[in-house]
C-alpha cells in the first residue's frame, strides 16, 4: 500500500482550482505532480496565493470545491506517493 499524502491550505480564504474562470484546472484527479507544482489558489483579501504540492505523487482526490471557503490546515487534496 502506498503512503497517503495531503496538501493543506496554508492560509484562510476562498479556494480556486483554475487560474481564471476561462482556463482549465491547474491539476485533475489522477494527475502526477512534482514538488512545487501549483494545484490551486487561495484568494485572501483580494490577493492570490498558490497552493503547491510539497512531495511528488498522484492526486487521488480534491477535498474542496472551487470557491469553497478554506481555513489554514484544511486538507485541499489527497495524494498517493509515487512509489
Amino acid at each position: 500500500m502506498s503512503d497517503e499524502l495531503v496538501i493543506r491550505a496554508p492560509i484562510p480564504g476562498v479556494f480556486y482550482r483554475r487560474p481564471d474562470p476561462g482556463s482549465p484546472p491547474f491539476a485533475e484527479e489522477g494527475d502526477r505532480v512534482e514538488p512545487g507544482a501549483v494545484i490551486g489558489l487561495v484568494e485572501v483579501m483580494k490577493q492570490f496565493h498558490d497552493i503547491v504540492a510539497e512531495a511528488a505523487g498522484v492526486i487521488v482526490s480534491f477535498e474542496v470545491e472551487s470557491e469553497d471557503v478554506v481555513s489554514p490546515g484544511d486538507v485541499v487534496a489527497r495524494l498517493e506517493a509515487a512509489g
Partner: protein
Amino acid sequence: MSGEIGRLLVANRGEIAVRVIRACRDLGISPVAVYSDADSEALHVQLADEAVHIGPAHARKSYLLPEAIVAAALEAGAQAIHPGYGFLSEDPRLPRACEEAGLVFVGPPAEVMAAVGDKVLAREAAIAAGVAVVPGSEGRLASVTDAQGVAAELGFPVLLKASAGGGGRGIRPVESAEELADAYQRASAEAEAAFGDGGLFLEKLLVRPRHVEVQVLADAHGNVVHLGERDCSTQRRKQKLIEEAPAPNLDPAVRDELCEGAVRFARGVGYVGAGTCEFLVDAEGRACFIEMNARIQVEHGITELVTGVDLVAEQLRIAAGRPLGLSQGEIEPRGAAIEFRINAEDPGNGFMPSPGEITAWRPASGPGVRVDSGVEAGGVVQPFYDSMVAKLMVWGASREEAMDRARRALEECRIEGVTTTLALHRELLDWEPLRAGEVTIESLEEHLDAAAALAGA
C-alpha cells in the same frame, strides 16, 4: 429630510458601512445593514436598526449582487441605497436597478456613472471642459518626421505607444531626439508583429508625478462646488497608504487650476453627488486629469477635517433632492489633515494579508484625532474582503502640528491578534520625503525596496 428618505439601506460592510450609518443617525434616518455569512456579528450589523442577510461570504455571491441588494432594501422598507466605496459603488447596474425598483440611489445617475467610468469618454469630456489631459499626438503618427515634430513640441521624455496595444503592452519610453528615429522603427515593427498594426502615437512621459485629487459635490439643481484637494502620492502597488489635505508644497496657481478644472469637468458631465477628480502633477507643475471616481472615497475624512463639511451627510441631502447646503465662498479649508490606512497586512513579509481575530483593540483618540473603523476587540478581520481595518486621521492647525499629533496617535494605537501596517506608519513619520512633503507616486516603493535590500544584505 426625514420626509424624503426615512430609511436607507447601506450596501457595504466594514468602516464605510459604519460611517454611512453614523451619517444616517445624524440626519434622523433609520439605517439598514446587509451582511454575508461571514459578517453576522460585524460592527455595522450591530449599529444598524435592522440587518438583512444577503448571501455567502464570497462577495461575488453577496455584496456584489445588485439584485440581492435591491431585494434587501425592499424587504426592509428602505427608500434609498448608499453604495459606499468598492463593491457595487461604480457599477451602473445598481443605480439602474434602483430606478426600476423605485428606490433612490445615493450617487450619480447610471448613464453619468457609465460615462465617467469610460476612460476614452472621460478623456474627451475633460478636453471638452478645458481640463488638461496627458499631452500627446492627435491620433496616429504619420512618419518618423511627424514623430520628431510632435516630440519636440511635447518635450522629452516621451512614450511611444502602439495604437493597437493595451494593458501596458506596446509602450516604449524615449529619452531624447537622438533615440527617437531608431525607437520609432523598432516600436513600429514590434507593433506590426504583435498586433498586426504598426500604428504608433506619442504621449508625454510625466516624470516623478504626484497624485493630487479634488473633492467635488454637485446637486441635482446644477450647483457644483469643490472642497479643495488631497495628496495621495504615498502608494504601494497603486494602493494609497497615506493621504493628506491640503497637498503640501503645491503652487497655488496649480491648486486653483485643478480645483476649477474639477468643477468644470463635473458640470460638463452632469455629475450629481460626491465625486473625486484625480490628477497627476509633475515636478514642473504640469497637471493632467486621469479620471473621476463617481463615489465617496476612502480618504474623504481628511477633507471633512479641514473643511468641516460632512460629505456623507451632503451625499444624503443631495440624494433627497435638496440643493447644496453651502456655496463655494463658504468653503474654506483650515489647517492640515493626514490619514494613515491601517491594513491587516505584514509589511515585514511582502505585505502578506493577516486576517484573524482582533484580540486587543485600542484606537487612538484625543485632540485632533479621528479613527474610523469597522472592527472591535473580539471581532474578526475576514479573509474575504479588503484588508483595511481602520483609518487613523489627524488634524492640526499646521502640517507640523498634524505630524506631531500623528506620532502621538500612532504610538497610542494598539491592535493585537493581526499584523498591521501600524508599525510601518510609525517609521514613515521619520521618512524624509514625507516629512518634507515631497513624495511622488514612486517614492514609497523605492524606499521599501531599498529597505528590503538592506535587510537582506
